[in-house]
């Protein structure tokens, strides 16, 4: 109620009421001195506000505007591109996302390197065959272990490997294996092409399987060390070149890339569980 009265009071003082309402309100003011005082005060404010209409003359000229606009080479922007941007923006965003996805997940898998782990060798004798066409480039890193040597400890310590290109031995601590191994997702991605390759090499392996029984022991009894030595690895490589086929063993093969894993600081490794029909090579 008060609000309505105050609204009318302001409306009357500032001349916003229509004629009929103004007359009614004016009549009510005769009985209400407080409101009448308020109206008088507001009307004086209205008069003072009206006097603010006088302002100093403007000195801004047309020439200044001309220099401000044309001097800077400004032009009215074209309306045609406004809707085009709306269409273009989602497409551009999608492209960026797709590119980001490819960059994040599309790690190259060139020059995979296979090494044998002690468990594999301890189960049965291992002979590794490198297909001849793979020997030139990339040069594989291989390691092997004699089938007669069962002196590996239960917990593997070190796997020795030899890089054929530099002929320098390299090694990785197998304790890091859990970290090096990536998620099952990555493993599944890398397993499929490897198995396909295995299939293509299957016949060659079968043909050479006879000679594996006679393959020589590649390392000569380094039982205390629990690992193949660099020299042994080098000998192993030479033996492998004699084209021994891969035996069928239920052991683990680790594929190691040359690319470094930024999280671990070691080369990226991938574990392949099923080694049946595996031909190891570059």
């Amino acid at each position, binding site marked *: 109620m008060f609000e309505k009265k*105050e*609204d009318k009071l*302001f*409306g009357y003082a*500032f001349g*916003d009421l229509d004629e009929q309402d103004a007359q009614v309100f004016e009549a009510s003011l005769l009985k209400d001195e407080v409101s009448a005082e308020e109206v008088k*005060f*507001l009307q*004086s*404010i*209205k008069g*003072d*506000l*009206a*006097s*603010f*209409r006088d*302002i*100093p003359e*403007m*000195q*801004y000229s*047309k020439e*200044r*505007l*001309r220099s*401000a*606009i*044309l001097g800077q080479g*400004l*032009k*009215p*922007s*074209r*309306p045609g591109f*406004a809707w085009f941007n709306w269409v273009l923006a989602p497409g551009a965003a999608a492209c960026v996302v797709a590119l980001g996805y490819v960059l994040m997940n599309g790690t190259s898998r060139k020059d995979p390197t296979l090494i044998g782990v002690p468990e594999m060798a301890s189960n049965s004798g291992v002979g590794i065959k490198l297909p001849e066409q793979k020997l030139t480039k990339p040069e594989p890193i291989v390691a092997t272990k004699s089938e007669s040597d069962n002196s590996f400890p239960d917990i593997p310590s070190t796997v020795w490997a030899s890089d054929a290109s530099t002929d320098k031995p390299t090694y990785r601590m197998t304790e890091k294996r859990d970290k090096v191994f990536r998620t099952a997702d990555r493993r599944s991605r890398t397993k499929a092409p490897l198995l396909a390759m295995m299939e293509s090499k299957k016949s060659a392996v079968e043909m050479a399987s006879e000679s594996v029984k006679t393959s020589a022991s590649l390392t000569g009894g380094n039982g205390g060390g629990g690992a193949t030595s660099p020299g042994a690895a080098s000998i192993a490589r030479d033996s492998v070149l004699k084209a021994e086929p891969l035996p069928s063993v239920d052991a683990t093969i680790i594929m190691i890339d040359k690319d470094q894993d930024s999280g671990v600081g070691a080369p990226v490794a991938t574990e392949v569980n099923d080694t049946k029909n595996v031909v190891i090579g570059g």
Partner: protein
Amino acid sequence: MIRGLTMSLKAATTARLDLDSDESLVKRAREGDFDAFEVLFDRHRLLVYRFAYQMVNKRDDAEDIVQEAFVRAYQNLHRYRDEAKFTTWLLRIVSNLCTDQARMGTRRNNLEQKEAKGALDWMTTGSFENPIENLEQDRRRVALRKAIMALPEHHRQMIVMRDIEEREYSEIAEVLGCTVGGAKLRVLRARRALRDRITPLLGED
């Protein structure tokens, strides 16, 4: 014969009026005719300047706003839709600019006042009246100007548009983008705020 002449004269006059209308000038300016835009500037610069001056109460600042408003209008001519009056659209630009300027100006004024230790009060209130005027009235006006400048930006806009520039509620509603009822309500709130601010100022004096 005479009737025919009269009709053709009327048609020519109408065509001329159409050619000089804000809408046709805007159309020409959009196509790169800067002279047409200068005609618009000549026509509406006082309107823009008056509003800007009442909002910032400094001539230099008001002229800066005028320039910026017309530059923005020129650059955004394609956004102007013919359904609204050009002056309404222009006032909307000026209103936004004044809001921006007020945000920066508050900071700057505080700094200046701090440096001058209050000596700038007479300048910021913008009294340029004849000093022989009635002292009482002058005192009231100074207090009123202080109260207006102390109002929040949106209230000050309402007081300027309705009570100083005496614009119609429908025009205010167009500038604000609201209904006429909404414009009336905003003006009422602004007047209340002004009354609440000026009462203690007059009491102090």
